[in-house]
């Protein structure tokens, strides 16, 4: 699978898992997408730990410092997995894995080159001592506990969007 095919597969699988997935070229296009997706009146958590996050933070209107009170979380994620359309968050670089869990809208920024083609590729990339929390996330929080009827947004986000940046 070449790079283009990997990205295409990721976008397809993420959409199948009810995540909004789109592809942009470069940080400027990404920032435009972020401001389009995040309504101005929402409280947004964005840790601004990376270049991409700082570019996103610049266009966010109402930023809050804690993820617990945020309605939206905008953050760069560590990796993507094309096979399943998943994104990966972990307790590294001082990041809180709950930032992808508590707010009801999670907007993930993913560099295209961090997408692994398969689950095997991703798990083989994990070497040495692991961080305390690794979360492989595929679509929004969901349940089918009542009559096997799908309901979205139980304890985690009811909406997940991924912007793939190449």
């Amino acid at each position, binding site marked *: 699978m070449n790079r283009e095919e990997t990205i295409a597969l990721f976008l397809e699988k993420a959409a199948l898992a009810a995540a909004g997935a789109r592809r942009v070229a470069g940080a400027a296009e990404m920032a435009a997408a972020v401001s389009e997706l995040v309504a101005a009146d929402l409280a947004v958590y964005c840790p601004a730990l990376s270049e991409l996050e700082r570019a996103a933070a610049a266009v966010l209107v109402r930023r809050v410092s804690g993820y617990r009170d945020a309605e939206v979380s905008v953050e760069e994620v560590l990796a993507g997995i094309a096979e399943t359309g998943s994104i990966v968050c972990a307790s590294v670089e001082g990041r809180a894995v709950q930032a992808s869990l508590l707010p009801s809208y999670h907007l993930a920024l993913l560099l295209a080159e961090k997408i692994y083609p398969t*689950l095997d590729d991703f798990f083989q990339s994990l070497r040495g001592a692991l961080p305390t929390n690794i979360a*492989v996330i595929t679509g929004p929080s969901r349940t089918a*506990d*009542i009559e096997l009827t799908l309901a979205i947004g139980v304890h985690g*986000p009811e909406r997940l969007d991924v912007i793939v940046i190449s």
Partner: protein
Amino acid sequence: MSEHQTSLNFRENAAAAVQNDSLRAAMRNAADTFGTRRTAAFSAIPDLEALRDKASEIRLKVLDNLPAYLEEFSSNATRAGATVHRAGDAAAAREMILALLKERGVRMAAKGKSMISEEIGLNAHLQAAGIEVVETDLGEYIIQLEGETPSHIIVPAIHKNRQQVGKLFAERLGVPYSEDPQVLTKIARKVMREKFLTADAGISGANFAIAQSGSLVLFTNEGNGRMVTSVPPLHIAIISVEKILPRLADLPTFIRLLPRSATGQAITSYLSLITGTRKEGEATGARELHLVILDNGRTEILAGECREMLKCIRCGACMNVCPVYRTVGGHAYGWTYPGPMGMVLTTLLTGMKQSYPLVDASTLCGACVEVCPVRIPLVPLILKLREQKVREGLSDTKERLGMRFFGAAVKTPELFYWGERVSRLFWPLIRTLGGKDVAGRLPEPTGRPFHRRVP
């Protein structure tokens, strides 16, 4: 052992279940939905049979080297900051967890879904000691409100319809009645959020424990599993000895099989890997992690002829396709685990004397074997248990006599021939005397048996 085992009443339980119309409707819906979803999910996997072979092989390797893998897991988990405890039986595990909570002054614990905790009757034990335990999985929460036990290992409240859940929420939570699953889900989200953020401890199970890294692996959809394992300062996880997978590289095989077999998903919304406690520079993770590794009879099963049962990864696919489970539901089995895997595991874990009526809860159709992602030979295992039941003298006297008589008759062609003639002759009498319960279930003897019609 969970105290309230009623497996000995399986026949009575089952007879009552088939009279319960809402249960029958719920089970029918579940069976159809599960069947369709599972088939669709696996249609995208071209080499399913090879994948099942591989999964079975890995699980067998774990069983063959279990003590070494447990040692490796324990030492790696300890290195990552966890404290590992081994519990020989259910009582030991319960006491251990209660002591951990008490020593730390825990008043309220948020709990993720764990069948092992059901197996050891953990909630009742903690609650009796004054600790509030809140089930946070939606299905588990529903049955906790109702004071019931799970009737399915994946979808615990599968026996309830939306009207029943709506009524329960309205009565117990004081919310306006709704039967819309989306609305009910939102109500649970609101109630539970508060609990997560204020819980002193999180209690969870795990789907797998990775020997190589000392990590716990949890497959969840709702996000409650992530909450209870990472938000409270104290996390207690209870797993049974056979949950081990050797390496991280083994995970993809099980990620491809478990969610597809369980719910027909290509992967669950969340897959959490938890490795030890919060390390320097980390913003999240429990400050204290205790792993309770439960044996509860498994080492003994491992030494016996039914050891392959321990390959089970708890996907629930066997119950979804089982004609008996689909008819009577999970509660009839009378203990923690229902369906084909449940009848075998219950008998092995609780003993034949406590559960022998369960070994009849199968038509031996083999649908469970067809779907099992790790190729557990459930039908041969059920047959072994049936033999054991007879050996231990627990079968019905009339059944035993009948079988002995039949056995003798089929060994002698003359006797068999006369048996056929005589039964035909006496059939009107048998039907009159036997009533519908006996004669109604027997096929009417034919004048010319099949084997005489074939040249």
